[in-house]
């Protein structure tokens, strides 16, 4: 019998074109997703060296980071952004790459549309010039973010040079409390392992709590693996995965589907496989989470208080906490539920899928946003937007005074006009609370979409478990 292997090892070894001691492996890439911000210099590199895209059929592009979320029929005012968008169009045309552009019914955040279209499949190696490529690991794929030089490398060779990472199994067991979401699970994990806790590792999320999550919730968990320092996060495929994928545009069909499912069933990690690191978490212990600082590890329970630098043992953490308190304009001991908000953002590749919008709408329904709060909802893709509108969710949000926008990254990183003003405090369903991430001087608190929605109504953070 073969030695037990992890899912990561199975996918890795079936994609290693060449793996020799003292060399990086050459890893074959099944799917390459491309967006406007990290690709122009890569295409330019190809052009300068006279190279082609090796497999345009395995390369798909969209525009998401830069795009306005207002009326799509209006011209883009930001000239440099417009130029970058145009450049992607030109590059895709010249190199024969499929592009879901601003007028496409399939446009959306790259990590939302990959799964929607059925491009994201178990057992695949998936890369994109974007750190949240880890999202696609939710399907049992090996998916990770790369830099622009690597984008060029994949375009030219359909391969990457990679050092084999280590493996980290995180098991979450048991039932979640009512109101606690996938977002709280991953924020809680990062709080425990730290923002570098997963460095050099691929995380596999396992356990009964993970098995019980929907595909969209699993994507939320895997999405933020990079916030824990891990390049990739993955979850074993199962019936939930197959049910999600069946019938999607790029999913295998007919006999191919059956053969694919047979193959996918061989992927999960074997019992007794070796892990370089392991962690077990009791789901019942997880409360709704709120970040108080400037990295996603600086997180407390919603019922908790802003910590003091003295609460940390490590001098680096103390210094980071001091800086964070100053930037966030917080005082140790302040109750999280006393923090008043100016803005609410529901969107991003972490939490902008239809189930996120349904959950947020459910909180908002029949209520009005607090007069001091400006709230916006940005669907992850045009498909999510259409579905939400068909269900009347847009009306729920609009009636409550929320802004209902076109799809894109929007205020997750504020490359487009959607930004926080200096000093504004925002409850955000996105994934990064770095200084200035949502706008210079802006103060971001990461929460679940439900918590963000409730905060918009109350004007301050509330414990969603007591929301009725």
């Amino acid at each position, binding site marked *: 019998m073969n030695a037990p292997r992890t899912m990561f090892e199975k996918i890795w070894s079936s994609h290693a074109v060449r793996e020799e001691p003292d060399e990086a492996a050459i890893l074959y890439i099944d799917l390459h997703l491309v967006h406007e911000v990290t690709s122009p*210099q890569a295409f330019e590199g190809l052009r300068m060296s006279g190279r082609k895209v090796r497999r345009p059929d395995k390369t798909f592009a969209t525009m998401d980071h830069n795009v306005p979320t207002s009326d799509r029929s209006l011209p883009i005012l930001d000239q440099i952004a417009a130029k970058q968008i145009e450049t992607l169009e030109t590059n895709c045309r010249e190199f024969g790459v499929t592009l879901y552009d601003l007028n496409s019914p399939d446009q959306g955040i790259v990590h939302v549309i990959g799964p929607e279209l059925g491009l994201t499949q178990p057992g695949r190696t998936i890369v994109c010039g974007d*750190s949240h490529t880890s999202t696609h690991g939710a399907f049992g794929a090996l998916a990770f973010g790369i*830099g622009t030089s690597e984008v060029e490398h994949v375009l030219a060779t359909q391969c990457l040079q990679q050092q084999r990472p280590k493996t980290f199994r995180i098991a979450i067991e048991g039932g979640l409390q009512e109101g606690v979401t996938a977002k709280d699970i991953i924020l809680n994990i990062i709080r425990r392992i730290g923002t570098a806790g997963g460095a050099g590792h691929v995380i596999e999320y396992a356990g009964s709590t993970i098995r019980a999550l929907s595909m969209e919730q699993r994507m939320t968990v895997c999405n933020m693996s990079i916030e824990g320092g891990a390049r990739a996060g993955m979850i074993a495929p199962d019936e939930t995965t197959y049910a999600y994928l069946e019938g999607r545009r790029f999913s295998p069909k007919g006999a191919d589907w059956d053969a694919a499912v047979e*193959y996918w069933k061989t992927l999960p990690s074997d019992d007794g496989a070796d892990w370089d690191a392991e962690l077990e978490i009791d789901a019942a212990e997880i409360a709704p989470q709120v970040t108080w600082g400037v990295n996603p590890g600086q997180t407390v329970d919603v019922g908790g208080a802003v910590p003091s630098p003295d609460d940390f043992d490590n001098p680096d953490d103390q210094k*980071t906490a001091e800086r964070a308190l100053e930037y966030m304009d917080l005082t140790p001991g302040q109750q999280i539920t006393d923090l008043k908000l100016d803005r609410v953002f529901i969107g991003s590749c972490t939490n902008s899928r239809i189930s996120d919008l349904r959950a947020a709408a459910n909180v908002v329904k029949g209520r009005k946003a607090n007069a001091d709060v400006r709230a916006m909802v940005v669907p992850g893709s045009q498909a999510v937007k259409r579905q939400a509108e068909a269900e009347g969710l847009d009306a729920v949000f609009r009636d409550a005074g929320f802004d209902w926008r076109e799809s894109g990254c929007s205020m997750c990183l504020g490359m487009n006009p959607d930004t926080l003003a*200096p000093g504004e405090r925002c409850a955000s369903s996105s994934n990064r609370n770095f*200084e200035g991430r949502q706008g210079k001087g802006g103060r971001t608190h990461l929460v679940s979409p439900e918590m963000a929605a409730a905060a918009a109504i109350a004007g301050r953070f509330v414990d969603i478990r007591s929301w009725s």
Partner: protein
Amino acid sequence: MEPFVEHTGLAAPLDAANIDTDQIIPKQFLKRIERAGFGQFLFFDWRFKDDGSENPDFSLNEPQYRGASILIAGANFGCGSSREHAPWALLDYGFRVLIAPSFADIFRSNCYKNGILPIELSSEDAARLRRQAETRDGFQLTVNLPKQTVSDPDGKTYSFEMDSFRKEFLLKGLDDIGWTLQYERDIAEYEKKRDALPT
């Protein structure tokens, strides 16, 4: 890529852990389609005040660190976004060497691709070098890649670990794509098998 063998230069301290790539180069500068010219935007929100003038409290703005080519920072340097604009900005500003207790994975690999050498030293050693850079005028370090050492002006030498494969690429300034394309036949063969699978 320019080969990296030995480098002597002025060291500048940046005393913070978890410096993310959003700080190294903020998003508003990622819209450019060129590779060059990002140095002016390096650490933009820390380097400049709202009115566009230099922030005198930021270490790199202090006169003694002008022209520094070695940056000594805290742990988990370069975490967050995969933007290669971060190493482009560091390189364009003049940095060839980064010293920290640890680096984020994608950032480290992006540095290698641009001929920047990220060196991991223990927290104590990195902190000692940072303090010296803070207290001694014109504090220069010499980095020797073949020997994998950093030496201070007093002759004290620190060794660092380095993946032998990446070292070779840096020493010779090798082109990654060119290296992989030597194995084009293997790739084509693999591809044939892979394309026959249902997924």
